[in-house]
């Protein structure tokens, strides 16, 4: 495109007067005028962005912030057990040797508050809610609350004996310590739970028993599978991107369709396709049986397990690796490799010492992008992952939709979000988000 040069600014004659400060046309000093103009331009630029920024804050930042707030705020105990909550607030923590009998169990006044609240819970049908909340921290206690609430009307003083008569679990010091921490509306306990930890009777933090640890192993699995998928994507993308970058444009444009068509095809279509391919009666197994690699009764299970998640996600994320690699490789002049070869380097030396280092920015961009997208995947693992191929997002969805432990879901989401944001920041540092390109 050719443009004529803009007309040279016509400086008023007084601006070049060497005796005074340089001034603009209206007589103000040039520096002031300039900074005023700059500020105006800054404001104008910002005003263009402001509507969108407000929109994104309203529909994205605020909702996520509000959701994360739930990870530290849960009033389902304090709102429904007011008397006992008040008692906890007035009385210090007992510890395992506290209480009138030195067994960590409080005295009659606490049991009276408990009985009052259980009666209220019976009236308002909130025993299940309270029980569910306490059950988060001490498994097996929900039924204690529902059962006791059902019998609350019959409770009479002395309440301690009466309640212990209903269920001796009320005499469990750990239960009282858990109820105390559940009575606090603001709590970090859900983060402890999200990290497979809990508080013991004395309020110390400890790991939960081995057979109940699921979140840390799932985070580890999510990171490990994402890394594996990013690695597989790199392995598959590198030769293809290299070929595309070296081919003449008219050929590479055609081959590019193979990359872009999957990229533009619906995620659910691609996941469905993989289900069709990977079923035990599916195309891949049929092909292997036909060729004779496996027998008809030895069909390989490639779906509803980790293999399904890995294969389908590698395919779905592969274009996100090929495109950045390709755009970097296209800028690498082939002359360097040729020069190295003519100077006596072996093909592999020329590749590893000359070509490969120049592709590193593309590798970094692709690997980080694929990794970031993979750690948050939900749909594909849910459909083809079985139970061993589930990722952390699936567990967040489980707690959102099935168990309805929303505070724990929020805590898990916060941890995932923190990880993703760290990677995003890294991406911006190393590659720059402006350099993200599609198509």
């Amino acid at each position, binding site marked *: 495109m050719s443009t004529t040069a803009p007309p040279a600014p016509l400086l008023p004659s007084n601006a070049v007067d060497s005796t005074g400060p340089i001034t603009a046309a209206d007589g103000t000093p040039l520096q002031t005028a300039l900074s005023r103009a700059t500020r105006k331009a800054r404001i104008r630029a910002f005003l263009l962005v402001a509507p969108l920024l407000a929109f*994104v804050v309203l529909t994205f930042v605020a909702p996520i912030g509000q959701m994360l707030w739930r990870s530290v705020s849960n009033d389902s105990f304090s709102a429904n057990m007011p008397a006992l909550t008040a008692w906890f607030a007035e009385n210090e923590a007992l510890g395992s040797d506290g209480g009138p009998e030195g067994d960590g169990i409080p005295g009659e006044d606490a049991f009276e508050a408990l009985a009052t609240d259980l009666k209220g819970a019976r009236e308002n049908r909130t025993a299940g809610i309270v029980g569910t909340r306490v059950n988060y921290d001490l498994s097996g206690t929900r039924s204690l609350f529902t059962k006791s609430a059902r019998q609350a009307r019959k409770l009479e003083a002395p309440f301690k004996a009466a309640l212990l008569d209903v269920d001796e679990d009320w005499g469990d010091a750990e239960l009282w310590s858990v109820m105390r921490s559940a009575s606090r509306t603001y709590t970090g306990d859900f983060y402890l739970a999200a990290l497979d930890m809990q508080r013991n009777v004395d309020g110390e933090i400890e790991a939960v028993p081995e057979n109940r640890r699921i979140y840390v192993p799932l985070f580890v699995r999510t990171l490990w599978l994402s890394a594996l998928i990013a690695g597989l994507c790199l392995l598959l993308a590198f030769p293809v991107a290299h070929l595309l970058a070296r081919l003449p444009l008219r050929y590479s444009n055609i081959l590019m369709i193979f990359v872009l068509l999957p990229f533009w095809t619906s995620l659910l279509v691609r996941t469905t396709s993989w289900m069709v391919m990977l079923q035990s009666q599916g195309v891949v197994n049929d092909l292997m049986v036909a060729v004779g690699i496996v027998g008809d009764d030895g069909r390989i299970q490639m779906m509803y397990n980790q293999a399904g998640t890995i294969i389908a996600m590698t395919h779905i994320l592969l274009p996100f690796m090929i495109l950045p690699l390709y755009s970097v490789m296209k800028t690498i002049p082939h002359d360097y490799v040729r020069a190295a070869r003519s100077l006596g380097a072996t093909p592999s030396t020329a590749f590893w010492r000359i070509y490969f280092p120049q592709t590193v920015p593309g590798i970094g961009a692709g690997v980080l992008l694929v990794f970031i997208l993979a750690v948050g995947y939900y749909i594909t693992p849910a459909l083809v992952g079985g139970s061993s191929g589930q990722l952390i997002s699936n567990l967040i969805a489980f707690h959102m939709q099935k168990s309805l432990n929303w505070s724990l879901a929020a805590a898990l989401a916060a941890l995932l*979000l923190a990880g993703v944001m760290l990677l995003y920041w890294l991406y911006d540092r190393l590659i720059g988000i402006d350099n993200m390109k599609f198509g």
Partner: protein
Amino acid sequence: MSMLKLPAHASLGERVWHYTYLVICGLIFLFLISPILIVIPLSFNAEPYFTFTREMLTFNPDGYSMRWYDRILTFGMTAPDAVRDSSWWKDVWNNADWISAAKNSVIIGVFSTLLATALGTLAALGLSRPEMPYRRLIMGVLISPMIVPLIITATGLFFFYSATGLAHTYVGIIMAHATLGIPFVIITVTATLVGFDHSLTRAAQNLGATPFTVFRQIILPLILPGVISGALFAFVTSFDEVVVVLFIADFDQQTIPRQMWNGIREQISPTILSVATILVIFSILLLTTIELLRRRSERLRGLSPG
């Protein structure tokens, strides 16, 4: 493949490696494209299976049928077996599950695209100005809907919309999808503004053009390809999105991906494959449009010889 020339002096080892390399690339391309293409023949399967029957492999016409495409229309109808006259088609239009899903998808897609494109283009103009304050930070915030895992966005919106009465409304879904489409609009439009000669707008202003005229006559023609491809990206994002819909939409606000999600998990029949085939054709059309736009943009900006 003879497109890549091997130098005449290449050794035997190099030749072997060269052809191995081409075969590997071929296999990777096969890996990329075969899942997309495999659904097309299978969607014409006469049997309710997801694999090739003997009849299909021998190209026996009996092995093929359009029944699953027909099922797209009849599934959910009140009287699918009635005579196919105008009232039958009316029944299709009003009651067929896939048709109403398509209607929802288009309504949500169009409105969220309009919203995302309008706001995103405006913001991209601001972001590409050299004077933009806190550019990097703001850009980061605006791009983040693309990076933040959808499940987090969806749960956040679930609570927020429940509290504000936006849950189960089209407005709510449209706003959510617009947010998800915005990063694409910003990225594509700012890309077309790279190397934009700001003296052009100054020249126009000096010649007495109003800001609106400057936008319409100078900026818009230059960024239009970017705006359109950004809009297409935003539309596809909405058209393909299911996680947010699963969380905030009402149960009768099915979109095509949501209906597919149900279908995959429940009455999985080759109907899903025929819908998938239609969507693949749809993406081929989109891909072509994007490619034409890209060439036009490069020609306009004089970046490549077209």
